[in-house]
């Protein structure tokens, strides 16, 4: 039998058995819900928090011509919703009815219901003066050109005395970066724990002895990791598919502009990082025989991941071009978590991204060899705990089976 076919059988079993389990179905449903929820949130939440434009009722009688048009034009800063009515009384009534926030009529008068809004007041005052200008000029017998210095004075410079260093992340960018880090950590630990527990389960149930009658350790290891990666990709597809479907369904999703390249980076780093950590988790799992010991033996790995997560969530997002962020996003053990948020908040030099990816890609086969050897050496050891050194040494014996 083809050696890879055996690994494929292992992978197929992994996929079939896990896809059947309730935990898998539940987590897949959760991912779909999260994706839809995230799209819904970006679509509908801004509307909830954004203030509606102020509504103004303008009486035509006794007010300058073109006042309503000027207010509606939006050239005065904040957008206004303008209703034109014939008489002052009509405008007042609209305010009393709650259909308008303020009324502007001859007097000139700005009427509020029970509380004045100073911003709106300033806006309306300025609009009224501008609209009155042609009539005032005509009275003074001046042309617009003569009045230009009054109406349109020289612009005034605005300057920052202590400008912020580098590029400041916008709220959108930080939000995307944080979401990416959280999702990456969740994926790495979730799928990592599947591998860990799967390997330990095979030792606990001692099925590994039967398996070793038909398989070599590397076939079992490769098949298991491949199967769980396939499931991870499947769940990713469910997540992306749900998000795309939700965007199509909700129509006007207000997606953060940083989205697409960060999404690609997140997927690439997520998969490469998972590949790297999967084998480490498998090697750790092979050294114990009881489920209770699994978490203990995985502690150093989890700790590394959580440390990378903490650094990514704080230092990298706050100071994306600082030395810590740069190192963390290049080293292979932390780059799966740190590079994506960095890409979200800043534009790191291309060579840093290339180096980070290259190191990650190069380190994967090294880790596979190292972890594969420990796995092979430990998987058939029967004691409760197998030391790494013992595993390393006895691998020679298992490998030349």
């Amino acid at each position, binding site marked *: *039998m083809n050696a890879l076919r*055996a690994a494929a*059988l*292992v992978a197929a*079993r992994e996929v*079939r*058995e896990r896809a059947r*389990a309730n935990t898998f179905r539940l987590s897949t449903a959760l991912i779909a819900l999260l994706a839809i929820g995230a799209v819904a949130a970006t679509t509908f939440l801004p509307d909830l928090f954004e203030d509606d434009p102020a509504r103004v009722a303008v009486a035509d009688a006794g007010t300058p011509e073109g006042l309503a048009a000027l207010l509606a034009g939006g050239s005065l800063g904040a957008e206004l919703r303008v209703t034109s009515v014939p008489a002052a009384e009509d405008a007042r009534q609209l305010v009393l009815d709650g259909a308008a926030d303020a009324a502007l009529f001859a007097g000139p008068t700005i009427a509020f219901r029970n509380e004045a809004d100073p911003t709106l007041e300033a806006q309306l005052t300025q609009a009224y003066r501008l609209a009155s200008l042609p009539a005032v000029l005509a009275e003074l017998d001046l042309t617009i050109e003569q009045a230009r210095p009054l109406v349109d004075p020289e612009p005034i410079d605005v300057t920052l005395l202590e400008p912020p260093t580098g590029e400041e992340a916008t709220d959108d960018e930080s939000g995307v970066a944080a979401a990416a880090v959280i999702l990456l950590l969740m994926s790495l630990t979730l799928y990592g724990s599947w591998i860990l527990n799967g390997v330990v*389960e*095979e030792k606990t*149930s*001692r*099925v*590994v*002895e*039967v*398996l*070793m*009658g*038909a*398989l*070599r350790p590397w076939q079992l290891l490769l098949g298991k990791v491949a199967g769980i990666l396939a499931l991870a990709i499947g769940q990713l597809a469910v997540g992306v598919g749900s998000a795309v479907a939700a965007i199509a369904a909700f129509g006007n999703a207000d997606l953060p502009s940083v989205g697409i390249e960060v999404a690609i980076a997140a997927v690439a780093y997520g998969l490469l990082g998972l590949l790297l950590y999967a084998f480490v988790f498998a090697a750790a799992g092979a050294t114990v025989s009881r489920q209770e010991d699994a978490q203990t033996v995985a502690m150093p790995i989890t700790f590394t991941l959580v440390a990378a997560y903490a650094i990514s969530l704080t230092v990298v997002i706050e100071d994306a071009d600082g030395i810590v962020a740069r190192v963390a996003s290049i080293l292979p053990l932390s780059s799966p978590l740190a590079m994506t948020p960095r890409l979200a908040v800043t534009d790191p030099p291309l060579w840093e991204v290339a180096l980070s990816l290259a190191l990650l890609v190069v380190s994967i086969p090294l880790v596979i060899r190292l972890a594969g050897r420990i796995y092979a050496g430990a998987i*058939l050891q029967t004691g409760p705990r197998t030391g790494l050194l013992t595993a390393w040494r*006895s691998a020679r*014996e*298992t490998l030349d*089976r």
Partner: protein
Amino acid sequence: MLELDGLAKRYGNVTALDGCTVRVEPGRMLGFLGANGSGKTTAMRSIFGLVHLDAGSVRWRSRDITAEDRRRFGYMPEQRGLYPRMRVRDQVVYFARLHGRSSADSAAAADRWLDRLGLADRAGSRLEELSHGNQQRVQLIVALAHDADLLVLDEPFSGLDPLGVAALGEVVREQAARGAAVIFSSHQLDLVEDLCDDVAIIHHGRIVLDGPLAAVRSGSPYRYLHTSVDTTATGHDNWHHAIEGAELAWTKGPEVRLRIPAGTDPTALLTAAQHAGDVAFFRFEPPLLSDLFMEAVNPTAPPAVASAEPPR
């Protein structure tokens, strides 16, 4: 033919195997006997490369065993091992496929075997939902569903009720009849006696007795006399003390079981018994496997100690 040749293995201060040499012929069943810790399991695991031997070699058809050979073997480890939450039929199919059979063949074999061992209605159950005996049946099916050339069964009958033992024993015998080489270990010596063609007894990691069962029995330097003599009329309670070289294995009421040198004339013994009283029955025979086992494993101890508490 499977050859275990001069196997040696030490775990720290413990010697598990010490020059163990065993042969298993195709079409024959070898009963592999030994006390707890005598090295049976280590020897059987070495066939699958699960033990790194200090010395010796394991050969199949006169060559070192390859991964391809192993795929044609079937193994039932002492510590049973299957996926607890996997469905029974899926499990059998999966292992048959790992052993190189096609998907269709594996499915057919799974159905045939589950039906044969009365598990057809449990095909869709998770393994953990089955009783101990049924789990053991599944474990045996997993070992042989790919029509293994060599079956290595470590304590295949332990913990089974007599019906289970009979069913599984018959299946294993058929495998040998089909041409498979079978090696199985057991503590149930009467069972081994009924099932196996050949026997090998391992003690402290080395083989102390082996060969075809009949030859091993007749080759023993002892015979056993099991008789019941009613001595109430004569008062010759200790009649057997007069028999030359006889050692008492055990006695219960009128019954005695004696170990006697092989050359002793049975007719003289019968005469002596008839002199002592009424003989209800008289059986003169080569040693049973349990006798052989005790002789081989504990040759200096008197047979009384040995057979008074037959090894389980």
